[in-house]
């Protein structure tokens, strides 16, 4: 056999291969398909893709390509794409992470597109625009307003034979409700309420009622050790009296609708968000309802706030920023798009869209639409977006300490002191990075 390749032929061959690869690239770049990326389930994907098609048809543009995944998977993948320099043109952003991305200049400030009229925010809720600002620049366009909300099983309360908590209820009423659950002992020991001690939104809500933010606008910790100690002590008290599920049962809840304390028949009320009523209803046979996070006492308020549930942000590296801005504008303003999207991402922020959508909703979605506006004095101003390390404090500190207190490995006093020390150190480290 006399198959031979000399160096020159080899080099020529491989150069040709590389050249072919090189030529292939620009053709990809020329196809003007916007890349979209979001988290959420199939319903959201269907609606988002339908709107993308609608936009492409209206603007005679190439149909955008879309990718989506679950919320936990969204962040590693997005961060990797941004780091690799191939971020999607338009991606879904969360209030928790927007400062992190904006401060690292990964997202494009959108003010210039608002000024040039490509991105229309004329009848857009002012507080929702503010929610997308970081350091005065607009980095995200809210796709829906929502608020934290306690979701309860109406069926469970019917079984116990008492009325569910009314709007405006407080922590002072917990013993009365909980004793009723204890004496009736339904569904193998279902408790009144889930353990909220590890829930950052619940802590945030409670701290705000005490007149402090969880994080100050300067990115410092709001509460002191006494505040946190009192928080843990309150929950430890509920736990010892059997008002909330045992530490072992609570640890089985891994933040998915299927493992929620309602879904597993461990507690009749859980700490959640107003736009998630629909998700929870879809995995529960019980009829669900929605009420405020408890007041500290019947007179305190201001713990709730209208928050952007999620944003569209634009990649700073996008090659088609005008087009991307036009897409975002269409997504939030077009009436037909609004009819498709409805309240799946939260309450639409453009007044005209809201008016078109409202009559289309079923009873439960009407509850979602009206929940935030029904809160009254429970509602306070939107706090500053949380600092970079807020996610880490939630996951590696609050969750762990709440477990330690519940399992008896640490006293509330100790946990309060430890929380403030560690959280301060974590914030300090994130700032210096």
């Amino acid at each position, binding site marked *: 056999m006399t198959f031979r390749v000399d160096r020159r032929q080899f080099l020529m061959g491989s150069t040709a291969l590389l050249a072919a690869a090189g030529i292939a690239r620009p053709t990809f770049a020329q196809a003007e398909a916007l890349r979209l990326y979001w988290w959420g389930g199939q319903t959201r994907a269907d609606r988002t893709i339908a709107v993308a098609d609608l936009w492409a048809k209206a603007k005679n543009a190439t149909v955008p390509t879309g990718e989506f995944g679950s919320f936990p998977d969204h962040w590693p993948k997005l961060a990797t794409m941004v780091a690799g320099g191939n971020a999607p043109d338009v991606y879904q952003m969360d209030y928790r992470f927007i400062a992190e991305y904006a401060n690292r200049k990964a997202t494009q400030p959108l003010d210039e597109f608002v000024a040039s009229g490509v991105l229309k925010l004329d009848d857009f809720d002012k507080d929702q625009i503010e929610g997308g600002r970081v350091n005065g620049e607009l980095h995200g366009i809210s796709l829906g307003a929502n608020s934290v909300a306690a979701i309860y099983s109406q069926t469970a309360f019917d079984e116990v034979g008492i009325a569910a908590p009314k709007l405006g209820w407080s922590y002072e009423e917990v013993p009365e409700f909980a004793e009723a659950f204890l004496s009736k002992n339904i569904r193998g020991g279902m408790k009144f309420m889930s353990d909220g001690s590890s829930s950052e939104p619940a802590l945030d809500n409670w701290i705000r009622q005490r007149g402090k933010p969880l994080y100050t606008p300067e990115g410092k910790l709001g509460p002191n050790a006494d505040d946190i100690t009192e928080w843990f002590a309150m929950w430890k008290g509920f736990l010892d009296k059997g008002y909330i599920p045992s530490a072992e049962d609570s640890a089985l809840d891994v933040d998915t609708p299927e493992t929620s304390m309602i879904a597993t028949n461990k507690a009749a009320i859980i700490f959640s968000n107003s736009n998630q009523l629909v998700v929870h209803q879809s995995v529960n046979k019980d009829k669900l309802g929605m009420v405020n996070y408890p007041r500290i006492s019947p007179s305190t308020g201001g713990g709730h706030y209208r928050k952007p549930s999620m944003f569209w942000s634009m990649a700073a590296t996008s090659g088609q920023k005008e087009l991307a801005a036009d897409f975002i504008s269409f997504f939030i303003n077009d009436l037909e798009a609004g009819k498709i999207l409805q309240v799946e991402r939260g309450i639409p922020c453009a007044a005209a869209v809201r008016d078109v959508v409202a009559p289309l909703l079923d009873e439960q979605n009407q509850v979602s639409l009206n929940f935030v506006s029904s809160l009254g004095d429970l509602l306070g101003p939107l706090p500053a977006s949380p600092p970079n390390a807020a*996610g880490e404090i939630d996951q590696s500190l609050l969750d762990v300490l709440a477990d330690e207190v519940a399992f008896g490995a640490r006293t509330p006093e100790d946990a309060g002191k430890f929380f403030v020390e560690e959280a301060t150190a974590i914030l300090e480290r994130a700032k210096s990075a």
Partner: protein
Amino acid sequence: MTARAVEASAPVGRETGTSFWSRAWQNHAPGYLFLLPWFIGFFGLTIGPILTSFYLSFTDFDLLTSPDWVGADNYIRMFTNDRNFAASMRVTLVFVVFSVPMKLAFALCIAMLLNRGMRGLPVYRALFYLPSLLGASVAIAILWRTIFARDGLVNDFLSIFGIAGPSWISNPRTSLWTLIILSVWQFGSPMIIFLAGLRQIPADMYEAASLDGASKWRQFWKITLPLLTPVVFFNAIIQTIEAFKSFTPAFIISSGQGGPINSTLFYTLYLYNEAFAFFRMGYASALAWFLLLLIACFTAFSFLTSRFWVHYDD
């Protein structure tokens, strides 16, 4: 033959003094060409990222902005100022120390049971291998919950004897053990290797031993185990490395959190969170390199001590 043809047709190469290399090239070029895809993959996707991560371990890379050099800060922090590093190291060491010997012992027991020339052996072998194929999936996470929760299978069994067990999987004192049991349950691959090793032991040795009146027990300790030590050694090394790298069981079952109270915070899980949840890619790279060093030291130690207990048949 090829070489000669080339020499004849390309005498120029010889005059310029590159004869050795050009001949070597001409002899093997097609081979290298065929290997090219693998080379590209190896250098581009394996060696490149490994070296990059070594560089990144000395930086504060956060995935989104360009890395800044911070010297050995990441490594210093690991040992001086990181409680979670110590906690995750403890969890991982407990897991390695208990899961590996238990898994090997279990695999050997099953292999010996299967090595008695029974009928339908391939079926049993496949059945016992099945758990290893399931790996760590969401289905396994749900299965493990149903077995080890408060109202799970284990407690149903215990209640026969009047014992009210805790919720094993969500109690910080026992949760790691449910993961150790999961690892032991997936004993398929060492079992297959043990089975192959057992087949290699000549039957006449056992015949001779039983003629001399040695009990089954004695035969196991004097014949089976010594002759099997090379296989035990191989399995021990592979399984230990696997155990150090174990990630998915804890990730799936505790949903990435390592809870309750960090009791299942495996080293790799901690590393993953540092990298992708908290955006500290530089620090995570340092953690990864320390793990590599640890595994390398452990493996080297195993090889050094192996001559005292591994008997190679020669």
